[in-house]
């Protein structure tokens, strides 16, 4: 039998079965640290289900319910309602779901929880595809990226989940990145607090996936940082309707410096790259318009 030499220091064991270099795992560790032991987490099937565990084994020290793909927010809302009627205070109710379970199939239940003002924290780890089922494209897949269901490159610009969340006028919505962990940790703390005191909180974290994005696992943080530094991913916070950049990239690098780190853009033509540059530039302009 394998002897584990060092006990886990926090709420999640080490040596868990995510792929090497997985930044979802990193995000999960920060999430559990921010939420603390007084938490109940809902996780749909997907990569994060690796945290729920298998059979009689789990890797987390907080209660977890593994839901279905589309109803993480509804389960979380029900849990919150149950705690409320039983007078159980001081427990954080957290949904932790991937982009497929959030931006695609889970959007309806999430939108309803936002609209009802349920006191839940919903965290989307965005690895930009259905990674657990084998790299199939989602609404969050970056334009022109290869996936197993977008073999010629993904068409369409995808959904802007931050705008969707903010349009529900929830008290707290933000983007974050596994490459900027201080920013991530601060936002997680703010989101936990908002969900306790005010209403729904939403955090959308860019979590590069070496397996699906086709890069060396040693480069995860570099890829995550490159996304921000090229403005392919912007770090923003919307508190009570006020938008602000939390990491301002004054002198952005060309988009190619992000794309060329990854195998999923290998087939990109110079024309496509130019188009993507225009896209991130114009999206940034639109973002700035929110900041006034």
């Amino acid at each position, binding site marked *: 039998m394998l002897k584990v030499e060092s006990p886990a220091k926090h709420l999640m064991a080490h040596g868990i079965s995510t792929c090497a270099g997985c930044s979802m795992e990193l995000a999960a560790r920060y999430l559990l640290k921010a939420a603390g032991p007084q938490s109940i987490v809902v996780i749909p099937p997907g990569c994060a289900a690796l945290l729920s565990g298998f059979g009689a084994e789990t890797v*987390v020290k907080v209660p977890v319910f593994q839901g279905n793909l589309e*109803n993480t927010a509804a389960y979380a809302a029900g*849990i919150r309602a*149950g705690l409320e009627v039983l007078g159980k205070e001081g427990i954080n109710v957290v949904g932790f779901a991937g982009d497929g379970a959030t931006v695609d199939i889970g959007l309806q239940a999430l939108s309803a929880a936002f609209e009802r003002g349920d006191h839940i924290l919903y965290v989307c780890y965005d690895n930009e595809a259905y990674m657990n089922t084998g790299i199939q494209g989602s609404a969050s897949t970056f334009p022109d990226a290869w996936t197993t269901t977008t073999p010629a490159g993904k068409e369409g610009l995808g959904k802007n989940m931050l705008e969707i969340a903010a349009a529900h006028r929830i008290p707290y919505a933000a983007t974050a990145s596994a490459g900027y962990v201080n920013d991530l940790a601060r936002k997680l703390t703010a989101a936990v607090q908002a969900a306790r005191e005010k209403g729904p909180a939403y955090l959308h974290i860019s979590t590069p996936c070496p397996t699906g994005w086709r890069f060396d696992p040693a480069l995860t943080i570099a890829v995550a940082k490159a996304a921000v530094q090229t403005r392919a991913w912007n770090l923003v916070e919307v508190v009570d309707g006020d938008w602000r950049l939390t990491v301002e990239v004054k002198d952005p690098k060309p988009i190619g410096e992000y794309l060329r780190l990854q195998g999923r853009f290998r087939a990109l033509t110079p024309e496509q790259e130019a188009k993507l540059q225009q896209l991130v530039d114009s999206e940034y302009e639109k973002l700035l318009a929110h900041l006034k």
Partner: protein
Amino acid sequence: MAVKRRLLDGNSAAALAMQMARVQVAAMYPITPQSPIAEAMSEFAAQGSYPKKFMRVESEHSALSAAVGACLVGARAGTATSSVGLALMHEVLGVASGVRAPIVMPVVNRALAAPWSLWADHQDAMAERDSGWLQLYVENVQEVFDSVLMAYKIAEDPRVLLPIMVCQDGFFVSHNSEAVAVPAQEVVDAFLPPYEPKNAYLDPASPLVIDDLTPPTLFTELRYQQKEAFANALTVIEEVGAEYGRLTGRTYGLVEEYRLADAETALVVLGSVAGTMKGLVDERRALGERLGLLRIRSFRPFPAAKIRAALTGRKRVLVFDRSAGLGSDTAPLFTEVKAALAGLSPAPQLFGYVAGLGGRDVMPATLARALAAAEKGSGQGVSAWIDVNQAEVGGEKEC
């Protein structure tokens, strides 16, 4: 004992029973003909009564998901639905039963689209017969009220711990007003203590992962436990029905026998059409015919032994289904009854009928035709459709 008589329809009886059961969280989405249940529960919550929290969800899928979440932290939870709403819940029905959440759900039976229909038909619930939920089918408004109360006691029994549907026929019961005997709240409270989660629950003081990926061997073992729970429910339903009877004078079991003891011909049925059939039985009895009725209250678990005992010695058995059973020789209820009676000696002649789909009236004349046909012995062993007149929809066949 303070018993009030109140004029209630099936929907308001279901809602009142949930309120008196002190349901803490109700998550509901409106659908015809169930909507008045959602309205009544939201009104109760607004008045500060039970449910303590009414969740206005955006779909039936989320309604049941929220009820599961609330139940797993220890709240008594409920929802209600009908027809395509029940179909939309399908995925979560399996979760609720698999995590052994004792949720009670009034189902107002209505046909499934297509074509669209608003009216009574059991196909919605029959489509969920293997979802791991107990299913009770009631005949009238009093029984809706009584069964919803009993359902919480049955579902929460540690020998059972399964969710339960209390099925009432759309409009025939849901929108039909009757004088209902309503026991005092103290009587209900004594009958139904507060809910305490006894199995899997979510509590940071005692962390547990519920519903993670499960290897094949364990999966089979857990399914087997559910199967055992259904077997236990056969006993628990009768125990709870007897206890309820001692408190209220109305005793319920797995089946109801009506003038069956010496019957030569037995009608077997689910739901509200039993009322019409009881009238027919009385008429025929007055003429000296030995006709009786077996109404099956519990379709899940299916009380095969009870049914076998009740139908032993009958010359002929006529089973009426309010669902089509497409692609099968026999509609769902008949399939089960036939299997329950297999090998009986002497064997009764078995006849199946599909009637009353999409709310179509099942008239005494229709029943009379079925009886006459059965007396001639024709069409044994398969479900025949009665009252079909294809000329009405431009077809040629008229029968």
